[in-house]
């Protein structure tokens, strides 16, 4: 199976290679990336860390990028106040913007051929889909925030429009913050409601000493889309990275996050919420690697699965020998609403030094009967009561979304997903 898919991949690459933009990634590099991918093979469900991923779309898809089209954008959410918006359609810049003060934003339009592209996969233990991105990327947005800058927020909107039979889209992002810089970035993936799109994004975050990045990622693709994603982050001393991920859309989604805390005192928090319904499969694999002393990480996951859906969180924390004085917390919770749905929580800890403080907990269960009855006894309808409790369950994560507009929009998306907007909007 894998072999046949890889052969097709090579053929497709051969056919489009000459047309892929050199300014994004040089042709030779693309070839190397594909070779590296072929050497490792595509992920399969027998791979330990891909057990919960729905990989079928990868087998059927056309890998080559979808053609650039003059397509009309679907209606977009209003831009959150205080954020500069860039829109990408099927992996290419569609709507440009003026970069905030102290920030340089480069895309395929502005990059010189031969300018230094970045490699995402350098130290990733799981880089295969990032290699796929590197092979086919049609654009790349590279954001540099100058040292010491407190920059205005930036919003990156990736819109998927093409069907997977027409080709995939490859959002590619690099966020680099200079020493002491601070910025908030919203990254949203959305698409036409009915599009069977394949999106494979790759994001790299590079934080210099004492830089602070708040990064909101919202996946609200159409109900038929497939989303694959690889995010890597490197944190220097005293850097702080707050990553908040909401997964609501797509038929199947898999995000792989790898953060390396390589500078003393670096801190990262990952808060993720997943709401899976119908036949959805939402999978998040997060690896936090403590390398330097006194580094701190926090992983919070709240996942709900209804009907035949699945929500999975595989959270691994590695504390290297060099990472004395590490503090690591994990709180993973799943909520099952139905008998055929599935929640998979895998907290994993690997510790190679003594002086560490690690706490982790993982629980999955049904809606609390006492809470439900309490709501009914106040006149709330059973359906609304259930939705309300699901809502409350996700609040631990959603409440952390600081931009008001964005939080509203995410809340509305989640409620829309619960198909009970009317009853519940009162309770927001």
């Amino acid at each position, binding site marked *: 199976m894998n072999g046949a898919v890889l052969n097709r991949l090579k053929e497709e690459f051969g056919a489009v290679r000459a047309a892929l933009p050199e300014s994004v990634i040089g042709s030779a590099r693309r070839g190397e990336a594909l070779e590296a991918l072929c050497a490792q093979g595509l992920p399969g469900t027998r791979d330990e860390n891909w057990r919960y991923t729905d990989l079928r779309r990868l087998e059927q898809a056309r890998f080559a990028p979808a053609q650039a089209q003059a397509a009309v954008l679907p209606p977009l959410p209003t831009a959150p106040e205080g954020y500069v918006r860039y829109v990408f359609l099927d992996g290419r810049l569609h709507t440009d913007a003026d970069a905030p003060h102290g920030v340089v934003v480069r895309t395929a339009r502005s990059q010189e051929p031969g300018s230094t592209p970045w490699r995402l996969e350098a130290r990733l233990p799981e880089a295969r889909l990032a290699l796929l991105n590197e092979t086919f990327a049609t654009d790349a947005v590279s954001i540099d925030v100058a040292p010491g800058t407190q920059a205005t927020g930036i919003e990156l909107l990736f819109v998927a429009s093409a069907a997977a039979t027409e080709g995939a889209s490859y959002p590619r992002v690099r966020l680099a913050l200079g020493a002491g810089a601070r910025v908030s970035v919203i990254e949203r993936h959305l698409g036409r409601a009915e599009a069977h799109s394949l999106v494979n994004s790759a994001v790299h975050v590079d934080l210099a000493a004492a830089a602070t990045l708040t990064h909101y990622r919202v996946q609200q693709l159409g109900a038929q889309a497939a989303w694959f994603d690889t995010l890597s982050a490197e944190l220097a001393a005293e850097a702080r990275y707050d990553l908040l991920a909401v997964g609501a859309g797509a038929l199947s989604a898999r995000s792989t996050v790898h953060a390396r805390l390589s500078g003393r005192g670096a801190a990262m928090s990952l808060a993720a919420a997943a709401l899976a319904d119908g036949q959805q499969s939402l999978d998040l694999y997060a690896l936090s690697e403590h390398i330097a002393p006194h580094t701190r990480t926090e992983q919070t996951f709240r996942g709900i699965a209804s009907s035949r859906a699945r929500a999975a969180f595989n959270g691994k924390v590695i504390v290297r020998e060099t990472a004395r004085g590490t503090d690591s917390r994990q709180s993973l919770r799943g909520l099952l609403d139905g008998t055929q749905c599935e929640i998979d929580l895998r907290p994993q800890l690997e510790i190679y030094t003594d002086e560490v403080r690690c706490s982790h907990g993982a629980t999955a269960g049904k809606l609390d*009967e006492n*809470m439900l*009855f309490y709501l*009914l*006894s106040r006149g*709330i309808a059973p359906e609304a009561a259930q939705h309300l409790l699901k809502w*409350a369950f996700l*609040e631990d994560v959603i409440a952390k979304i600081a931009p008001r507009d964005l939080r509203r929009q995410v809340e509305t998306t989640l409620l829309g997903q619960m198909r009970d907007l009317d009853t519940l909007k009162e309770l*927001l």
Partner: protein
Amino acid sequence: MLTIKNLHATVDGQEILKGLELEVPEGEVHAIMGPNGSGKSTLAHVLAGRPGYTVTAGSVHFKGRDLLALSPEERAREGVFLGFQYPVEIPGVNNVYLLKAAVNAARAHRGEPEVDAFEFLTLVREKMRLMRMDDSMLSRGVNEGFSGGEKKRNEILQMLVLEPSLAVLDETDSGLDIDALKIVAHGVNTLRAPNRSQLLVTHYQRLLEHIVPDAVHVLVKGRIVRSGDRTLALELEKRGYDWLIGEAA
């Protein structure tokens, strides 16, 4: 208002209520006392329609209608209110919004429009002052992190805002300090009206000094074994339940 006849109810297959008879006329406040485990909370939950509490025989009529035929939420909208012995914490569900949703559910049921947001908040604030509750409790999750006494006050606050026809208060006085007890009693008293009834489950005569009941009933082993006026509560305080348990057997 409330007429219970020969009520039998089981929980997990075990019969807890065994032929309970009770009549609470309109405008009256009745107290139910009884030893631990006698079935007081079971009765309260049966009245509120809690799933898992199965009525195997008997009838309950509320304002002349078959209460048992209604779902829990319908009972609430019709004006039955249960003040929980152990109010539930629901983190993430805002206290005031739940209250508003509850009010609107009842209004929709009566064919009335939604409550005006501003008027509603004014009303809630006023009731909160009555209950000596801090404004910050408005914005917190339902009972989230509330102390035992604060939870009980929150129950009464909900009751005051919802203005039920029949309030069943399950040990709302337990865990309250002396001042809080007076506040709660005052809250309950403000709701006394010719068209409302209240059923107070309590262990203590103390509460009944502040809320003078029209009748006191003693529940032992799933049945009302004695009814009387408020002096019965005083007698129970002195003599305990042993003499009645003997009678019940």
